[in-house]
């Protein structure tokens, strides 16, 4: 069952310069898919198109069977939550509590319901003790966790992480990845947008974007095995994967070593 279907999608910021060019993609309900690409590959543009913040030149986007257009955009935004890159620029509330509430307030949730959800989801992202704190007293990772709580409270089926970890330190990054993993296990459809292959290998499937075009789509295993495509993708290969390819090239066949390197590549 596909939750998102993208057909022949093109978008240009300037004339004749396509940030996205004829993108076709389907995303299954409950899966975790990574959109992997270099800076300027069009990956963040794709996220903004899906949530209706930008309008496509050409093509169609269906979310949960509904075609995205001006009439349906608000309905569709209720199904999708998005955590952006810059933790500071998406914190709307004066306090943590206010920020978690913001989306629910927009959807006119009942006050009692909001207070319960604020408690539940702030606990879930380990920010309960910080409910009354102002954003300038929080770290980047904490702000991103607040953003996650705000989206969980709105109960969207899909969550997009648009380079949400790229401005965080390693510790913050690891904690956000941990939450993403859990959310996917709980049944949310997850789309992570990243230039870091180390993050992408955690997902079920990977889409590689290059210069606005889909270079490859497939199961993570399949993508990692596709040496030619990866080499042409402008991405940095993971170290164990590089070693694996080198051993292959030198025709050294040792199943045990291969297996170990494969597991290391998959971050296991």
């Amino acid at each position, binding site marked *: 069952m596909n939750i998102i279907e993208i057909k022949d999608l093109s978008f240009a910021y300037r004339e004749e310069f396509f940030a996205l060019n004829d993108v076709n993609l389907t995303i299954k309900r409950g899966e975790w898919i990574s959109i992997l690409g270099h800076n300027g590959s069009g990956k963040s543009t794709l996220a903004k198109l899906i949530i209706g*913040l930008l309008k496509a030149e050409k093509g169609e986007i269906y979310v949960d069977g509904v075609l995205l257009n001006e009439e349906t955009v608000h309905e569709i935004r209720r199904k999708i939550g998005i955590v*952006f890159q810059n933790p500071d620029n998406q914190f*709307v509330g004066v306090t943590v509590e206010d920020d978690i509430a913001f989306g629910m307030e927009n959807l006119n949730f009942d006050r009692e319901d909001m207070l319960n959800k604020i408690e539940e989801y702030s606990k879930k992202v380990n920010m309960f003790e910080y409910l009354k704190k102002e954003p300038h007293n929080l770290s980047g990772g904490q702000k991103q966790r607040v953003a996650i709580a705000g989206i969980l409270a709105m109960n969207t089926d899909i969550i997009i992480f648009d380079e949400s970890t790229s401005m965080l330190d390693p510790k913050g990054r690891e904690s956000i990845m941990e939450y993403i993993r859990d959310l996917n296990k709980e049944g949310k459809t997850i789309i992570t947008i990243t230039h870091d292959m180390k993050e992408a290998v955690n997902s079920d499937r990977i889409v590689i974007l290059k210069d606005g075009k889909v270079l490859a789509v497939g199961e993570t295993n399949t993508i990692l095995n596709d040496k030619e495509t990866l080499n042409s993708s402008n991405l940095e290969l993971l170290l164990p994967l590089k070693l694996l390819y080198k051993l292959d090239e030198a025709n050294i066949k040792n199943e045990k070593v291969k297996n170990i390197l494969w597991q290391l590549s998959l971050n296991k």
Partner: protein
Amino acid sequence: MKNIIVGQYVPGKSFLYKMDPRSKILALGILMVSAFVFKDITHIIYMLFGVLLILKIGGIPIMRIARGLRPIMILLLFTFSFQVMFIKTGDVVLETVLTLTYINLGLMVLIILGWYFTRTYIKSRFLFLIFVILGILTMLSLFTPGITISSSNFVVYEDGLLGASFIMVRLIIIVTLSTILTLTTKPTDLNLGLEKILRPLNIVKINSEEIALIISIALRYIPTLLDEANKIMLAQASRGVDFSEGKIKDKVMQIISLLVPMFIISFKRSDDLANAMEARSFIPGNPRSRIHILAWENRDTIVIIFCIVVLISTIAVRVFL
């Protein structure tokens, strides 16, 4: 820069803190009107005592209020001297001749120089200034040896003195009342209270909820922007911008080197923020539910009734006495 607090709010526990911000704003309005209704010095001094009583019960240290008055000290001094000098009715309180001679002119210059160089070491500078001014006036009136340069009559009338004191007390009351409000109410609560009070304006197509949202976003971003401004200043200082000196032309350049990055970053920020708000189903103008509600309690009603009684009595006093 981690602990910037917007506004003057100081945490506390007295009844002033427990009151609903709406009733505080209303009470402030009513009492201010009362302060303007009074025309008589004795009555307004009673009111000043009333305000001091509120401070006492509310547990607000008088020093905090004094700090709030500091910025308007010069204004107070100016209005006071103006009133004293130009109202020429009523009984004469003081009449003296101020004579400027070569000798006391010299002394005067010395005193002013002395004040100029010692003022940074004196704790209450304002009092020091008043003492110096009074001292000079006394000298001009009593100590006049040598050749006279010029001399003039200086007369203080009762009405002038009373009028001056009256205006000063009224200003002090108004500033004190508003300081009480901002000291005991969090900016967010104040904002919420204003939103509810301004709600009737929705009839004339002014959306008080949107105004409140704008204010709350501003409150949220002030510390972030201050922090950023500081970093931009350091970055430009690293490129040799010396903010402590420079000619006018350099100064202009210095300010541009701060403002342009500030604007560019703020544009980017507001763009991102608008996206983030829209993504979370914000639709401008649509009704929103709120987690914060205000609880109007009996004490709020009592306070408002009390304030109305005060207002009615002031009007009565004005009309009948």
